């Protein structure tokens, strides 16, 4: 017998109707997230859900958590401000591949190395959906889109390899084609005490390629567990991550077995130490008194 969970998935679901196309992978991500949040059981008002701009960045509005649907590419800096202002909050960041690896690409490495206890979910669909079908940073080379009518000439970003190389302590990949798997990956990511990243292959039904749809995912996905991958093995994780774009591996690529104290905890220690030297507020300026 287990104790009843204080919150259920439906408690995190808001009344707003998603703007997504029927069949969009993001519906599955949203379901997975509801389940993960319910499993963790923090009340919605203690959850801050930060996003940028894009189809997937609409996701905070579909939850009952505090949401911040900010500007394109800046969800990570905003989320770090939220977490540092109130470390007790559960902070989740979400967005698409364009938001995270194109316009906001400069922030990812720094969010990783700062290592706040936040979770970053990227809904990777290899295309710009909201602006109707342009080339994205994870689009495969040669892809023909409205902005690459003759085929793209550049290699895609490999989000998994990027995050591993930046030194992220938790890197995973999932797909809504495996709902229970995705929900538990998100839950695991949130529970990891540091910066965690889940790349979610979330198909775009309107502008995505046929070989990137959920049906294909179902047939193609291979769990890392079935490959007997040890998530503590960082080098093997990088080796497996190289298959991004060809293989669809799901599960945890890497989990730091000895997670360091996250940034906000280090700050608490510093604040406790320094607070002993505080002056009364009215006398702060007197530090400049010339005697």
């Amino acid at each position: 017998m287990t104790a009843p969970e204080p919150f259920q998935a439906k408690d995190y679901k808001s009344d707003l109707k998603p703007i997504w196309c029927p069949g969009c992978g993001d519906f599955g991500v949203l379901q997975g997230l509801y389940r993960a949040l319910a499993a963790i059981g923090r009340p919605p008002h203690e959850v801050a859900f930060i996003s940028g701009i894009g189809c997937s960045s609409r996701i905070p509005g579909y939850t009952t958590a505090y949401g911040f649907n900010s500007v394109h590419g800046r969800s990570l800096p905003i989320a770090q401000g939220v977490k540092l202002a109130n470390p007790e909050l559960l902070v989740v960041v979400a967005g698409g591949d364009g938001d995270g690896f194109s316009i906001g690409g400069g922030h990812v490495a720094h969010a990783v190395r700062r290592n706040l206890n936040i979770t970053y979910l990227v809904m990777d669909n290899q295309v710009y959906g909201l602006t109707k079908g342009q080339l994205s940073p994870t689009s495969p080379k040669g892809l023909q889109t409205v902005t690459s009518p003759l085929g793209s000439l550049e290699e895609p970003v490999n989000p998994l390899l990027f995050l591993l190389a930046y030194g992220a302590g938790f890197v995973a990949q999932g797909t809504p084609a495996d709902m229970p798997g995705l929900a538990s990956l998100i839950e695991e990511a949130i529970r990891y005490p540091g910066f965690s990243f889940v790349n979610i292959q979330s198909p775009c039904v309107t502008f995505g390629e046929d070989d990137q749809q959920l049906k294909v995912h179902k047939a193609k996905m291979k769990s890392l567990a079935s490959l007997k991958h040890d998530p503590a093995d960082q080098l093997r994780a990088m080796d497996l991550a190289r298959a991004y774009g060809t293989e669809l591996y799901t599960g945890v690529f890497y989990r730091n077995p000895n997670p360091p104290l996250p940034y906000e905890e280090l700050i608490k220690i510093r604040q406790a130490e320094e607070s002993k030297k505080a002056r009364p507020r009215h006398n702060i300026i007197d530090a400049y008194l010339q005697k």
Partner: protein
Amino acid sequence: MTHAQLGLACCSAAPHIMVDDLILGMAGAGGDGVVSAGESLLSAASSEGYHAMMTKSFGSQIRGGESSCRVRLSTKKVLNPGGALDVMVALNWEDFFKFGAELPLSVDTVLIHEEKVGPPPETLAARGVVPREVLSVPISELTKKSAGSDKAKTSVVLGLLSGWFGIARDGIARGLKKKFGNKGEGLLEANEKALAAGIEYAQAHPLAQARTIAPPNGTPGSKLLCDGNDMTAAAALFAGVQFFGGYPITPSTEIMQTLTREIWKYGGTVLQCEDEIAGIGASVGASFAGKKSMTATSGPGMDLKAEILGLATIAELPLVLVDVQRGGPSTGLPTKPEQSDLFAAAFSGHGDVLRPVLAPTDVEDSFRITVEAFNIAEHYQTPVIILSDQEIAQRKEAVDRIDTTKFEILERLKPSAKELESYSRFKLTESGISPISHPGMKGGNYLGAGIEHNEKGDPTSGGVMHAKMNQKRFKKLDPLKQRADLFELHGNATAPFAFVAWGSTAGVCREAYALAKKAGLDVKLLVPYLLWPIAEQVFGDFFASVRHGLVVELSHQGQLYRMLRMQLDVPRGVRSLARSGANPFQPAELVTRLEGLKEMPQ
């Protein structure tokens, strides 16, 4: 008193003037320590109770290159760095000339130079100024003889200045002890000997016309010595700042540097971010999470922050952004003051935005304006720009102690328990201000967003709601224009002559105003601390009597003048007096320019 004794000792044979205001300049190569000497002088004088101000100027080299400082000492409040120098110390000519108009001489200047660099070159005469007295002093030689090495050169210079002009000899000696006391007996001793050698030399070579500064009015230990950036940081801590996100940029960086030493003591955090955008992003995030938050930057950073400033406006999140202006556009003049970011502060970013812009005019009021900025940001739930500039930010002033008990600190309006039962984050209220919740507050859950929203915070693209929300965001700031305390007025209401000035230029205008009054001109002065929105009524009332006026600004365009023209009917006789940064105004020239307007056709 040391200076009184000195006055008697050196002036028995020569006429002796006692002044209550003395402006000194020093220039040399990077390693000469002229700025350090200026700081010693400033610190000594302020510890004795003088009012004082110091500005420094460098080439933009990282190390070496030319450096200079100006120190103004007074028995009264110092309004600005002053015009022509009373005393100039040049350690070499090449570096002195690089500062041009920043170190102007007059016929009354006493020019002291290092003997070994030779007499003043032709260039000086070519400028049309022949200083009254030129003193060639073997500074290096005196240093070597007294201190045994070349290292204590600045102490000889301090000795000379103290000896000749009666400046804070005891304070300087105390300062040397503080500075070198724990760096080995030898170093302190060497500097003390060098100081004595300088004083001795001055006594042995009296000036043709002795000039000493009067004793201070203030009591010892009654002055704060601080630059504008530090004052801003201290005020932010006083106002309760809990988060600062930023990126280093000259000349604002010291705000972040000071806060990152101090903020932890008060439970806050400084995050040095990867770029300017992340700096403001993190700050907006912290504000969303309910904390008083700030960022600081200079021109190039203002450009990068524009998008998130717009986000803070539409999401109605309090934020203080300090823009320490420097010469622009682009990299421009990174180490020099200019007042050319007013348009950027008021207008940058797309969409219909009304964003309050405040400007301090000196180090002292940087405190008040910073506290005010936090109050306005929190009360009205809006980003507020503080427009400082390089001069205010990096000049040091000895000012009277600030009585912080007279300041009120405002907090954002929280929803009541009843309001949380059915909460609307952006409720359309009479004042336009809606109670604001934050993550962690039960029942206050909402979606903050850059997208237009309805009262609950849900996204909308409807024109009717968009218009209502725009109206709300503008209306809530209306009361600001009635804030008479954000304007400083001098002179008769009926005066036909007028100055208007803001920021660091205001200090020059305050002195120009006093000079013009003394010269018998019926003049008044308006110094706005609130630059945007324009308080039409305040300016309109001020201009009503004005037939000849100058809006004085250190920028090519004269941006405030243009904004005034945009918002109200500025009388034809009111002109813009604007010139590019790093060309500081002098009080006397402003009076001449104002008087000159009489000849202009109306």
